[in-house]
């Protein structure tokens, strides 16, 4: 067991899967010698060569479409979009082909690819480098959408994504990349896609989040306990789609109150689906409106103000207290 950052843990997952399975190919802009602009693919080219760790031309639709072709042949491409803010260039390839070829060919073909992209704000980056648009992918039939929150679950989920027989969009929260270290077992570990986790138990209210905002959510839960004696249960979605609504429904039935936290814009965002599922499945148990603590419905501001844009501990604590006082 070693303590690793999320970047190191993802890198470990790629190393181990590539070693184990020669169908796994890594490709994208600057994933070779440069090791990716965040170093997630660092060292792979030295170990596996330029045939399996491919620096592509600068073209996102190209990267996705090329990956689809490889996957159709039976390979397991793991392609990187340099930032999630550029993956719309590949949207038509993913919506129209990756997500559909199994269905279109009625089972003859499949597209076991992973599209990785660093997502989210909090690293004082340029425009287009801080977006959270996971809802686009989550709404797209035929795709799975995963966002880990820690080094260990990032590693396990990436392995599961690579082994998944279907296309997985895998967003990596940049704000977590190097934020902290966690023990990551050397031995392979997987986590089932489509399964969320309780990361802190509580009885008074359920807080649902994922990715980077899981951390202020947990912090908020601590503060709520310490300062206000409120026991919040915190759920980490991990997979956005298919959404595991069993766990949070059960929790909501217990607590009766829910706050959803994400940094994606609020309207038509992932939180809305969580609310809708809770209304469908736990209506009679809800004792207060479900609050969405989210990014605003504007372009995320440049870095001087991004902390005011992003949901932080204060915003979460306020929402929880208001929900409890309802």
């Amino acid at each position, binding site marked *: 067991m070693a303590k690793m950052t999320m970047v190191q843990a993802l890198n470990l997952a790629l190393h181990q899967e590539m070693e184990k399975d020669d169908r796994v*190919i890594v490709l994208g802009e600057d994933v070779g010698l440069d090791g990716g602009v965040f170093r997630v693919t660092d060292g792979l080219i030295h170990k596996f060569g330029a*045939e*399996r760790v*491919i620096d*592509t*031309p600068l*073209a996102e*639709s*190209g990267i*996705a*479409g*090329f*990956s*689809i*072709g*490889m*996957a*159709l*042949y*039976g*390979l397991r*491409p793991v392609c990187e979009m340099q930032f999630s803010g550029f993956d719309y260039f590949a949207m*038509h*390839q993913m919506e*129209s*082909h990756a997500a559909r*070829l*199994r*269905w*279109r*060919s*009625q*089972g*003859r*073909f*499949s597209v076991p690819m992973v599209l990785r992209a660093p997502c989210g704000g909090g690293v004082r980056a340029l425009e287009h480098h801080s977006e959270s648009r996971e809802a686009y992918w989550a709404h797209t*039939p*035929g795709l*799975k959408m995963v966002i880990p929150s820690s080094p260990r679950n990032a590693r396990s989920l990436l392995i599961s994504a690579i082994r998944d*027989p*279907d296309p997985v969009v895998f967003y990596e929260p940049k704000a977590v990349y190097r934020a902290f270290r966690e023990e990551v077992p050397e031995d392979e570990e997987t986590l089932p896609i*489509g399964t969320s986790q309780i990361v802190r138990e509580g009885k008074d209210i359920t807080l649902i989040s994922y990715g980077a905002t899981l951390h202020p959510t947990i912090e908020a839960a601590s503060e709520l306990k310490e300062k206000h004696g409120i026991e919040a249960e915190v759920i980490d979605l991990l997979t956005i789609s*298919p*959404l595991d*609504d*069993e766990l949070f429904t059960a929790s909501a039935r217990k607590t009766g109150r829910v706050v959803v936290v994400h940094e994606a814009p609020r309207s038509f965002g992932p939180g809305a689906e969580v609310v809708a599922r809770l209304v469908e499945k736990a209506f009679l148990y809800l004792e207060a409106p479900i609050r969405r603590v989210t990014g605003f419905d504007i372009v995320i501001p440049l870095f001087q103000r991004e902390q005011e844009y992003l949901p932080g501990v204060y915003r979460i604590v306020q929402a929880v207290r208001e929900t409890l006082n309802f």
Partner: protein
Amino acid sequence: MPRKEIDLPYRVDHLSILDEEGKLDSSIEPLIPDEVLLKIHRTMILARRFDERMLILQRQGRIGTFAPIKGQEAQIGAAAVLEPDDWLVPSFREMPAELWRGKKMESILLLYGGYNEGGYVPEAVNNLPVAIPVGSQTLHAAGLAYAIKYRKQRQIAMTFFGDGATSEGDFHEAMNFSAVFQVPVVFVIQNNHWAISVPRSRQTHSKTLAQKALAYDMPGLQVDGNDVLAVYAGAKEAAERARAGGGPSLIECVTYRMSMHTTADDPKKYRTEEEVEAWIKRDPITRFQKYLTAKGLLTDDTIAAVDAEVQSEIKAAEERWAQQVEKALDPLDMFAHAFAEMPPHLLAQKEELRQELAGRKKAE
């Protein structure tokens, strides 16, 4: 040194072997075994007749919208250079090439008849399903070719697309990736002069489409796309180059869409009868038949016999189609093949639909 021309490695040629009258330039006649020539002919006829039949079925409301292929049957010349395990990556107007590659007519009818099941591709056939988003499939061919190279196989990938498709960014990216990685792929443009109502001359400002290969230092060739021998020869050259590790090629087949864009389209709105008639004179089947007749491989009688045979093949396919439609009656199958394993929310939605259908039945 100050201002000087840069030497480029490629020029762009035009290739024509069998002219409109069926006259042959025997100095460059490709060597094709007689039985292959006859099989090409037969498949061209089959494609022509099946296309005509589909148009009738469409007009009768028995199938939905489809894209007729009339006039583009010489594309079979390109498909004919493929080995069985090569990959065919078509658009939506490659029915002739698909028939050559073993696609079943009943499955085509099932698809255009509106059943998901029509998309099924048999295990033995390396054809991708029809791709409708214009130009997008070219990238899949490039990726397949990369995988072939990675696996050190002798296969190649061949992708077909229209003149209009060359305007899409995906075409550019596919050409660029293929050239950078020098993968075994052949890009075949079916320049049928129209992208729905937009003529080739308005689609792009370049004199030819073949010259677009120059942007990638890729060999580019223009062939008479209604001359099945030229199509074959051009494709053969490209396929051999690809198989020998020589990388990708672009072939522009200059042909013509004699019929409407799709059955939902009325070409009279945007093109003249004269233009169509001029192209009917250049029919790929007529001149190929002249050639085969001159070669002693066909007679009027054997041509008629081929025609009769394909007609009964088509009829048999229609019967199999009818049987498959019988079997394809369960709407719940719309949930099939969404994922390898159905996630809980889809199981639940399928159950919703099951209950709805049961309820509706009861209500009737």
